[in-house]
């Protein structure tokens, strides 16, 4: 890949459940790269690990029982830094016969280390927008005040009045009408779509290298959703910002991302150029991606009023990870020829075409990878 901005390598983010005496393997060996200027979309159902991947990159996995391994490299200002550097030293795992017996974590040390690593990165190099913008904004402070604060903290504009001008400029950029009036508004007086715009303005005003957008349209009305998607598409062409976009909504990913990663049960099961992976005529596709696309009501399904092709079974819980393919239990394309493999051996993420990788025994290329 040319000029990566963010490279995630073999990331594992586990959360220890005391009650179950086991790890919830939210992210279980994920490797992904985001090139400068591109948008990588991660799609998956709840529990697939897509959000935790993003949170790990933003250094927000600080919760007591969280354990991270692997590396997340951020390339900026000509330097490379591993955002997870040395973190694993703060957690010790005692295992017996492959089962976790105990986890000891020096939480204060971990948090301190994490803060050191993220200093000057989170908010500045990596900015985030979330689902439910209203709760992400400070309710006691006006939109303008919050923006000015971000700008003075993260950019070279330190003066009050120039920061204010820049803030208004950003409110304009995200198409908030009458930005000078809105500047003095509190979040509660604004609609959900408006809050999301303010949130986006705030994230971008720090002029970050990477924008992480975690479910930016979820929970908004459909009319507002399409406006926010439009806005993100526009800002992408205007600013060329590198984006890691997380969504369960495949249509949002399809519209906004250059490349896509489909996650299931904590792993990436398919990745490639969005146009290629989601092309209607695609011949090589992971059974899960296919099933996911089929469970959305298509124009054809609606016209014929036919049944939806549901994926049987439940989303994999990542405590008891099967030995074979994680999707095996729900897969409807297992053939006799590969059944043994599917049940007993996790398939590798193999390249089936340049830049297109699929984790499935169906595709012979995966055998060689």
């Amino acid at each position, binding site marked *: 890949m040319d000029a990566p901005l963010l490279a995630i390598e073999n990331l594992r983010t586990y959360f220890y459940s005391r009650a179950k005496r086991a790890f919830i393997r939210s992210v279980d060996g994920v490797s992904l790269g985001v090139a400068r200027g591109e948008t990588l979309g991660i799609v998956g159902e709840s529990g697939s690990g897509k959000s935790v991947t993003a949170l790990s990159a933003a250094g927000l996995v600080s919760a007591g029982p969280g354990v991270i391994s692997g590396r997340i490299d951020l390339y900026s200002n000509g330097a490379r830094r591993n955002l997870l550097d040395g973190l694993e030293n703060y957690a010790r795992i005692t295992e017996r016969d492959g089962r976790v017996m105990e986890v000891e974590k020096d939480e204060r040390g971990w948090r301190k280390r994490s803060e050191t690593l993220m200093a000057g990165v989170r908010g500045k190099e990596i900015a985030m927008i979330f689902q439910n913008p209203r709760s992400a904004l400070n309710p006691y402070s006006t939109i303008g005040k919050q923006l000015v604060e971000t700008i003075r903290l993260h950019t070279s504009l330190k003066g009050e009045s120039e920061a204010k001008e820049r803030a208004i400029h950003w409110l304009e950029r995200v198409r908030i*009408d009458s930005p000078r009036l809105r500047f003095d508004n509190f979040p509660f007086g604004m609609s959900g779509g408006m809050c999301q715009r303010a949130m986006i303005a705030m994230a971008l005003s720090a002029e970050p290298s990477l924008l992480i957008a975690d479910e930016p349209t979820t929970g908004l009305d*459909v*009319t507002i959703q*399409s406006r926010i998607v*439009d806005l993100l598409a526009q800002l992408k062409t205007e600013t060329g910002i590198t984006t890691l976009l997380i969504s369960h909504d495949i249509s949002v990913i*399809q519209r906004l991302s250059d490349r896509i990663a489909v996650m299931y049960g904590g792993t990436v099961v398919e990745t490639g150029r969005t146009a290629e992976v989601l092309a209607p005529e695609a011949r090589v596709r992971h059974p899960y991606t296919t099933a996911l696309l089929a*469970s959305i009501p298509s124009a054809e399904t*609606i016209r014929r009023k036919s049944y939806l092709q*549901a*994926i049987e079974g439940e989303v994999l819980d990542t405590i008891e990870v099967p030995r074979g393919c994680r999707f095996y239990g729900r897969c409807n394309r297992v053939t006799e020829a590969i059944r043994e493999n599917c049940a007993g051996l996790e398939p590798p993420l193999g390249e089936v075409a340049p830049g297109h990788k699929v984790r499935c025994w169906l595709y012979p290329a995966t055998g060689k990878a």
Partner: protein
Amino acid sequence: MNRTILEVTDLRKEYSQRRGLISMLTGQGRVIPAVDGVSFYLRENETVGLVGESGCGKTTIGRTVLRLTDPSSGRVVFDGRDITNERPSDGEIAIRIRELLEQVSLKDSKLANFPSELSGGEKRRVGIARVLAVRPRLIVADEPTSALDISIQAQVVNLLRDLQKDLGLTYLFISHDLPVVELVSQKVAVMYLGRIVEMGLAENIAHQPRHPYTGILWSSLADKQTTEVNRRVDDVTVERERRTWGVFDFEQPVSGCRFAPRCPLYKDKGSPAVCTDPASEPQLRDVGHGHVVACHFA
């Protein structure tokens, strides 16, 4: 033609909100008309979809039909009986749990589980089983698929359709998920700020909408789904930036058509006076085949 099982006539529900010291002292609050004169009916074994943005009053209608909320005025007739001022009895509650679980395709072994031990899809199915336990004929399904994963959502939609076929159920299907509504409903009613602005057969609502709002609802869905990867984003945005969306401002009294401030047609037609004339709020009128629209220009 099946017989009518539920008839709602001129239903109104107002909430009053008090803000600030002065309104508290004078006892005057502002009145929010959550549902503002809604009429519709459901025939047995049919599904009517109710769509609209949040705050349009669709949930309030569901709650009023179930008599969880008292209407301010209007009439609700269920199975020929006026239930506006009474609560319908639950009927005989026969406990048929095993049969029910089978109907919603849950395993027997789940009987001893606590809700927290079930997955989202299973919880939703238990919810459906609980509803079925009273052998209802009409089910108000308020956002039955929201917050579920796509694959699980498909299971629940299929289940609801099976149950309708097997048990002859009637659904009032309230949802913001337009494709799902279009899939399961025979008829769809589109609500905007407390009123039905268009109602008709599902395929007509989705593909030949007569009200500009309905058109916008469905086209925003299409915009989001656009498959052309290299589409020129700019053209579209410029075109759509003309319609300024805002939130409805309850402080400003509605005069004329309540959609006019957001209406592209209103702007295209050069702001005709009839749209903002307080004396002529557009009423639902039949444009053929039982399709009704509340727009001066439909």
